[in-house]
């Protein structure tokens, strides 16, 4: 397992009750594992092995099958994300307009690499392949906010505005 995390699992009984409802809803649906994982990630924010175990038991599948699917798709995360999730678009339209420099500026500013989370848990960085806002390239998203037509020097100020 390459995706390890030092953060212990802190699921609440409420979350588990929600998850059980989701599992019951998809148990008899053909191909129900993907929607279950998607909704489970919505509840917990990520898919730690504890959650995958509950899903495997609930759907009557082996843990290895659940783990196999969870690690296949880039949208599923086995490690927790920061309070603010930064996503720099590395799609073609953004790339030819220099989004790699935006990503480097974010990494330099926060002192972490793409795929990592800052020690204080405030920010995590990911790159993504096209959010479809190619007209605004290069684009970065912080949580649900989209920042378009970016330059590397704007990055610092944008990130500072999330620190409060």
């Amino acid at each position, binding site marked *: 397992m390459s995706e390890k995390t030092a953060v212990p699992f802190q699921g609440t009984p409420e979350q588990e009750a929600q998850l059980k409802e989701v599992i019951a809803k998809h148990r008899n649906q053909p191909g129900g594992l*993907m929607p279950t994982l*998607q909704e489970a990630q919505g509840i917990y924010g990520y898919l730690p092995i504890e959650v995958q175990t509950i899903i495997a038991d609930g759907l009557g599948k082996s843990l290895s099958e659940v783990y196999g699917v969870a690690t*296949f*798709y880039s949208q599923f995360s086995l490690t927790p994300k920061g309070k603010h999730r930064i996503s720099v678009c590395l799609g*073609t339209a953004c790339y030819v307009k220099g989004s790699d420099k935006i990503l480097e500026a974010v990494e330099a500013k926060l002192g972490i690499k793409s795929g990592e989370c800052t020690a204080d848990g405030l920010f995590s960085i990911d790159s993504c392949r096209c959010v479809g806002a190619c007209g*605004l390239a290069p684009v970065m998203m912080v949580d649900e906010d989209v920042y378009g037509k970016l330059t590397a020097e704007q990055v610092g100020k944008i990130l500072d505005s999330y620190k409060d």
Partner: protein
Amino acid sequence: MTIEQLNEIKAKRADIVKVRTIIAEEGEKLAAQTGYRKQVLVCGGTGCTSSGSMKILDALNNELEATGIKDEVLVVRTGCFGLCSLGPIVIVYPEGAFYAQATPEGIKRIVDEHLVKGEVCKDLLYKETVHEDGSIISLYETNFYKKQKRIALRNCGVIDPENIEEYIATEGYQALYKVLDSMTPDQVAQEILDSGLRGRGGAGFPTGRKWMFTKDAPGDVKYVACNADEGDPGAFMDRSILEGDPHAIIEAMTIAAYTVGACQGFVYVRAEYPVAVHRLQVAIDQAREYGLLGKNIFGKGFDFDIEIRLGAGAFVCGEETALLTSIEGNRGEPRPRPPFPAVKGLFGKPTLLNNVETYSNIAQIIRNGAAWYASMGTEKSKGTKVFALGGKITNVGLVEIPMGTTLREIVEEIGGGIPNGKKFKAAQTGGPSGGCIPAQYIDTPIDYESLSALGSMMGSGGLIVMDEDNCMVDVSKFYLDFTVDESCGKCTPCRIGTRKLHQLLTKITDGKGEPKDLETIKDLATHMKSSSLCALGQSAPNPVLSTLQYFGDEYKAHIENKTCPAGVCKNLLSYEIVKDKCVGCGMCARNCPASAINKTDYIAPGKKLPAYEIDTSKCIKCGVCITNCKLKAVIKK
């Protein structure tokens, strides 16, 4: 729902929608009859939403409330108009006044001056729509729209996608009625075949033939599916169609289901497209409510329903067998074909799978006839194609052109040319599976055959324009980086081959390339093309091969001279401050994101403050210092 009820809804709403397609005096008269003096269209596509169009919508509604003209003005949130770089976009009818890059302050003026007093705010209009003498020209007369032919996008930016009655007003669901009422499945499949429509997902397989195969496949249970897993980074036409005209897909899938004998449909859509997913779900719910999905549609004894399945970020799931495996809830790995999905697809049953843009043409082919569709385009590529125009081009956005339009018309006329006085270098089509069309082939007519002949492909329709500042070796490395990430790992030629290709390209861009590397690349590419399991691996070498073919000199410069002619590859570059030019203003140091610029003790002759220098060990070569230095004291070597 009966045809009489459908026609009643159409009659009730038709004029309101029609106001948005005609302008000038006729539009004025019609607008007066509809009960709405003015209509304000606000783009609610992802591009404009990202530029803040929802705030514009709120501001507009507040202003209308405040001025007391709310009941006379109809506000419509539409899908994408296509000119994404000008967002947020607001259009006022019946004048057809096209306001670009709207702001809340601008909205106040538009309400006070235009909507209340009837005076168009000319200074806020998109400049291409205002003549030098101050008169307004229609948006459809601008260079951007003039050469376009909107079929797949006909309702995008025109109707409210969350209101089924607006779709019905534009002949929506008439084709479905025609099919259920008076056509046999054979006739429908034949009509689609005769139209010459080919798969718009990239491969270009004749759509009618696919429908016939699935129709003729034995089996009681069949499925239809829609591929909305638009994975090519830089392509966003499928998303825009789902956001702007979702009922067109529902109607087409229902027609397809009747033709092949299916009763359940699935739309597999990227989870990265939340707006599209939402609109499609709203549309499905409305279609059910109106009896256009579900049991006994139009009372003709035909049942059909659609379910949305979300992807989870895997490019390979755009491949048909991988997509179906993913809907089944598994790792989205492709499997060998045959058997093709038409024989053995979803859950082992015969399955018809088409892409969003392909479906968006179906209802219009049924209504207007195969001959109408076949009258557009070239001999072997009929109809139109939507392209997502991106990269170094003035009018970034979505364009739909008849097949056979030349690349020059797209880039120079529709796209408005290359910004900042730079030179066109190449256009990339087909994304990670495609290749480049260099400047010397700019007069190539765009269709399936001519693109393949140039070593590129139609692909799903991403068209990325590159100028002299883009390094072609770097661009191929970018695509290989993508395919290394996205290779599912099932077959060795793709899993290992993409990685080896990427390593070789990295070696070259790092300045460590050797002449024999180019031979190794060609050899490896040949094996990958012939032995990979699916199109992802088979086409992954295309970006390298095509750039190698047309820009071989650039590869050689990296290998033999250890230089990057475009000035992109970092390991072949360094940044330096020319100390005698530096006045010590510190702008570079303040803006450096890596804190790599420090003050020195040296004061240049005639200057008052000490010069700065770059700590190359910390420098990330982002170029911010260059853009910030007014004296051009920072140079790139």
